[in-house]
């Protein structure tokens, strides 16, 4: 082996990246050649100098990163607050899966159990039992008074709220009406998430699209907003939808929502977005959103900032 050949191998030799055969030959040469031995020593010294710059992540920075990530994942994973509701839906869906005749071509079977809310909206009709001596399962009572009467009986006055369950295809008008109302008005964010999630594949309907945009811009729960943005994805080319996405990009305080919004808005060239993107470059803290804005601006040959 010549000195030139060995010196080319020295970095790989030092890092143990030569084959056994190459290593033996290089080692034999270095052992015999003072010049190459000095080169080997120089490689060791360089590595030792570089080692002094080796650093571990400071514990505080690591903890900050973990906290940031946990918050972002919480916002993104859309876990409903009311777990039993979700479990009930999953169980019901699993049961229905056995009855293939019930399944719609696009799997759009929705089961709705909205508790008090459904009781408010669904008018009483056939099949609804009236109050009996003892409240039945699924009926919530609030006793207003309890008094003995002259015959020795007890007279009890109570209000009752009845839980109703309805089921039907997602295209059913009544089902959609319930879902739209739940998406807008239900107090429980878990129910809103589920409702928007069920509606999102029907964004072609004007009413559903409005509900999704409303949820994106006004819902206080980031999980609901993320579901809404998911539903608006196929409509991202429409001007009104782009307007809502642009508002979310500029003003939503949740990183995951802004990341989704910027993805949809920069999927294709849109010169009307230049001003919004330039303004964002001045104030946006999220690296991913900044990166996407910068890339889109470059593609449109626009300056990165405003001057």
């Amino acid at each position, binding site marked *: 082996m010549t000195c030139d050949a060995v010196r080319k191998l020295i970095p790989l030799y030092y*890092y143990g990246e030569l084959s056994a055969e190459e290593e033996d030959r290089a080692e034999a040469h270095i052992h015999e050649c003072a010049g190459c031995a000095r080169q080997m020593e120089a490689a060791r010294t*360089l590595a030792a100098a570089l080692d002094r710059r080796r650093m571990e992540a400071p514990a505080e*920075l690591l903890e900050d*990163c*973990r906290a940031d990530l946990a918050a972002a*994942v919480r916002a993104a*994973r859309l876990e409903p607050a009311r777990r039993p509701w979700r479990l009930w839906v999953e169980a019901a869906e699993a049961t229905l899966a056995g009855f293939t005749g019930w399944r719609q071509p696009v799997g759009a079977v929705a089961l709705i159990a909205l508790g008090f809310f459904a009781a408010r909206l669904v008018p009483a009709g056939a099949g609804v039992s009236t109050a009996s001596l003892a409240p039945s399962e699924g009926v919530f009572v609030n006793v207003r008074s309890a008094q003995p009467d002259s015959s020795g009986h007890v007279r009890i006055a109570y209000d009752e709220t009845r839980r109703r369950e309805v089921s039907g295809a997602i295209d059913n008008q009544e089902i959609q009406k319930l879902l739209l109302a739940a998406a807008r008005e239900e107090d429980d964010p878990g129910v809103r998430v589920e409702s928007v999630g069920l509606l999102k594949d029907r964004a072609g309907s004007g009413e559903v699209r409005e509900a999704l945009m409303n949820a994106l811009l006004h819902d206080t729960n980031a999980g609901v907003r993320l579901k809404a943005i998911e539903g608006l994805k196929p409509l991202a080319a429409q001007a009104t939808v782009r307007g809502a996405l642009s508002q979310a990009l500029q003003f939503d305080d949740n990183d995951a929502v802004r990341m989704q919004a910027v993805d949809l808005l920069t999927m294709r060239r849109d010169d009307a977005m230049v001003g919004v993107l330039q303004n964002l470059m001045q104030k946006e803290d999220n*690296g991913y959103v900044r990166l996407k804005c910068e890339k889109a601006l470059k593609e449109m040959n626009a300056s990165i900032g405003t001057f």
Partner: protein
Amino acid sequence: MQEATGTAGARVNPEVDSLVRAAQRGDQDAFEQLVRTYDQSVLRLAMNLLRSPEDARDVYQEAFLRVHRNLPSFRFDCSFHTWLYRIVTNICLDQLRRRKVRKEEPAVFETSEGEIDRMESFEEESAGANPERMTWNRELGQRISGALEELTPRERMVFELRHYQGLRLRNIGDILGTSEEAAKNCFFRATQKMRTLLGDLV
């Protein structure tokens, strides 16, 4: 938990695999355990490459959010470690390339007391090192930072992964989507440049 990193493409760590499968089923505790298995090395890689705690924090967040988002589609075609590092190195390379083009975010900046390395000052604040060592570290650090800046983003990445992260060049090739031979050539060029630029130190 230690991930065997030398055999990309193989299922080298059953414990990690079972965590990945649990996380794919929506188990958030498993996802958190996965993060904690790798996040120190991810953050260290980002800090060493970008020399900025803020940028390292962004890389960390973006990388693990991408993992969270795409984990359901991970099919074990390579080890989880390789997949994760593909994500992390892509994000870091994008940042390094942007800096090369825009010449922004220099690791060293001017103050009334001379040049300060952003990461040196960060280290000093947190470590409380003694003054002589701080001075030596600062000078050495500036020389090395300057030399590292001369490497191409890809050379820098290969060098970082080999020297500081201790990955094998074969694994580095898998992570960067290239051959072991190409990774070797890249590493060789990086070490030659470093030797030339830091020749008087060695």
